[in-house]
């Protein structure tokens, strides 16, 4: 009897037809954190397996598509939206899905304890009218451009078991897979939901997620055929399998965030935007992608991934690597002999060292200050970061307004850089309060937002990270939503 053969039951055969059955083994670097169920976080293998959302964006067009909501109407003033819900949808415990669940979901997101990044957007929902069990109307305080970001984000959970959900005991949703068990630090297992509202889906009988907290070990597990899909790896980790035809490395545009350097604008001379711009010119973004991210990722001075409506080549390339320019700007600002701390998360040592080196080339000396995650986060939230820090942020993959109201580094009201500028506030609010996300006015507002960010540079974006799935080549049909949640509705092992 061998432990090696045991798990290699992947059905063989190379036909293009989806195959039913089998259990998908997934390896994840991070563990499930139930307390973060209602936030976007590093563990992406539960939101769209167990749960559904009202709508979901088409990854190509970024237009919302029906999911639990069959159809919807947005008022012309953008201040209300009415959903018609899909009938016959049942939670895994057999209870039918109704409008009350939508009401609960929205109120739940407003609760600060849930730490939902889109809380600000959820809070805009002032009033909820249940028209009938399958129809619900939301009234908003003001129009928001990222309304459907909220519905993409908001998972619909069984309202009676939510307290058990945030402790990881019971996860009850309407999704393709039924949560069976979670052993913290070890594994999660899911079984097929036979009553899933999409017929013939999912293909898999079950999904097992193994927690493999070490990058090399995760790659080994993949190569040892222990898992067919590895999530959470970065570009450098996949080097051993990149060229191996047995594996596919899938890169998603939606990105899993962006690497940036933050500047505390209350620390001299970083109150001068020319100094911040100099930093932006000083850093060789291309080299970071090549050397520290294994070539995966998009060097960009703007936060937007290619999929974002705000993305443009021009903004991405606004700050090319130009040390001379940087030096000139510094000289202009009258800055010399700069020696400042550069804080960073102790897990991203390589990038921090590269930033340090590049800055040194233009005469900005930095002392690296590694912080462990808890401390980093505490300083980030507590606005106690030193002059410079390197980190990563999310939420640029959606409507640009979401970034400015939901991503802490950019938050116009309160951010780590302690940057505040009425002009910025105005532009953010304008971009956010667009009734139609796709209108030319909205697009112009996004452009303004990009411009103000690129000009002020209190957040100096460096690289939009690639969102990588590394899989056995037999695995087909894996998808993800804009929040990088794993979608396995159509996945199968060929």
């Amino acid at each position, binding site marked *: 009897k061998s432990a090696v053969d045991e798990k290699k039951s992947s059905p063989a055969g190379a036909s293009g037809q989806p195959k039913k059955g089998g259990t998908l083994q997934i390896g994840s670097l991070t563990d499930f954190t139930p307390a973060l169920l209602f936030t976007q976080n590093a563990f992406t293998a539960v939101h769209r397996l167990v749960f559904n959302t009202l709508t979901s964006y088409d990854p190509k067009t970024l237009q919302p598509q029906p999911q639990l909501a069959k159809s919807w109407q947005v008022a012309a003033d953008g201040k209300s939206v009415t959903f018609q819900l899909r009938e016959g949808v049942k939670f895994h415990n057999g209870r039918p899905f109704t409008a009350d669940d939508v009401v609960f979901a929205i109120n739940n997101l407003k609760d600060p304890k849930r730490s939902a990044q889109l809380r600000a957007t959820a809070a805009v929902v002032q009033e909820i009218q249940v028209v009938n069990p399958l129809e619900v109307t939301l009234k908003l305080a003001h129009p928001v451009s990222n309304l459907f970001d909220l519905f993409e984000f908001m998972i619909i959970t069984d309202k009676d078991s939510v307290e058990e959900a945030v402790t990881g005991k019971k996860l009850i949703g309407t999704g393709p897979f039924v949560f069976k068990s979670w052993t913290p630090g070890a594994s999660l297992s899911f079984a097929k939901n036979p009553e899933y509202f999409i017929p013939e889906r999912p293909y898999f009988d079950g999904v097992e997620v193994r927690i493999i907290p070490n990058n090399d070990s995760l790659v080994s597990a993949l190569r040892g055929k222990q898992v067919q899909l590895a999530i959470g790896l970065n570009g*450098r980790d996949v080097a*051993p399998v990149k060229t191996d035809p047995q594996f596919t490395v899938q890169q998603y545009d939606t990105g899993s965030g962006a690497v940036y350097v933050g500047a505390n604008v209350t620390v001299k001379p970083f109150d001068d935007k020319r100094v911040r711009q100099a930093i932006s010119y000083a850093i060789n973004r291309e080299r970071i992608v090549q*050397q520290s991210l294994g070539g995966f990722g998009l060097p960009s001075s703007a936060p937007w991934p290619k999929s974002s409506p705000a993305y443009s080549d021009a903004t991405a390339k606004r700050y090319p690597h130009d040390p001379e320019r940087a030096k000139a700007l510094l000289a202009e600002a009258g800055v010399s002999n700069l020696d400042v701390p550069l804080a960073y998360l*102790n897990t991203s*040592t390589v990038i921090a*060292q590269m930033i340090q080196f590049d800055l040194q080339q233009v005469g900005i000396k930095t002392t690296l200050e*590694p912080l*462990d995650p808890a*401390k980093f986060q505490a300083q980030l939230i507590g606005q106690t970061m030193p002059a410079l820090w390197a980190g990563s942020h999310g939420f640029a993959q959606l409507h640009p307004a979401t970034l400015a109201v939901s991503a802490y580094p950019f938050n116009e009201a309160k951010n780590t850089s302690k940057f505040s500028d009425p002009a910025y506030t105005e532009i953010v609010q304008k971009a956010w309060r667009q009734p139609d996300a796709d209108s030319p006015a909205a697009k112009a507002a996004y452009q303004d937002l990009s411009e103000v960010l690129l000009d002020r540079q209190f957040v100096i974006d460096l690289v939009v990270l690639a969102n990588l799935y590394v899989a056995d080549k037999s695995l087909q049909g894996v998808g993800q939503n804009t929040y990088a949640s794993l979608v396995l509705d159509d996945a199968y092992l060929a």
Partner: protein
Amino acid sequence: MTPRGIIGLALVGVLLGAGLAAPLLTSHDPNFQSADALVGPGSAGHLYGTDEIGRDLLSRLLYSIRTDLMVVLIAVPLGLLIGGALALVAVTHRVADVAVQRLFDLLLSFPSLILGLTVTAIAGFGAGSIVTVIVLIEIPSFGRMLRGAILVHRDREYAVAARIGGAGPLRLLTRHVLPNAADPVVVQVAVAMSVAVILEGAMSFIGIGIRPPDASLGGMLSASRPYLEDHPFYALGPLVVITALVVGLNLIAEALNRGARR
């Protein structure tokens, strides 16, 4: 000194020399990042290649010896000093003895890496924390050993003779007991040094090592992990140096041990 002891001295001496003379032995700045990284042995003036972000590996290796030796040479004597002081307190007062022993138990019972994480979280990253952790780990091992040795030697006939000769407690301890009780300590110092080097590596692995961009043996070794398969030479360098250092220290300890026994 036995031939093995001489080999040990030579090994440690050569490494020490190489570390100290690092600026003379290499023209590369250990922190200079060239845009074209050549992991593994390569040309372009990099005898032993560069790391993933284009820093010359040979010069980093040489400088890392410095770092490690500095850590070790500060931490181990400090651990010995504090452990020894506690042992002295323990052997002079019965009540203090109980307290000190419980303290040793406590320190021994904390797993070293968890201790490392905690210390680093409190004191911040870098050599200071590594030194602190090594000191905390070495305190009980030195302390226990010395306490035991002092108790044994204090009852030896020569110590009784010294007491009858009129030696007070202080003189008894410093002049008679300690010089003899210190024998096993010499060996423990070498052992502690190897433990320290190994621990530095383990701490680097879990991301709480020497503060970058400084090079350290453990840091290099753990950075080499992703390249073990394609460029095993990357790992081999620090591994060989660590091995030589530890083997050398052990050989010296062995020789000293033998010397002490005679």
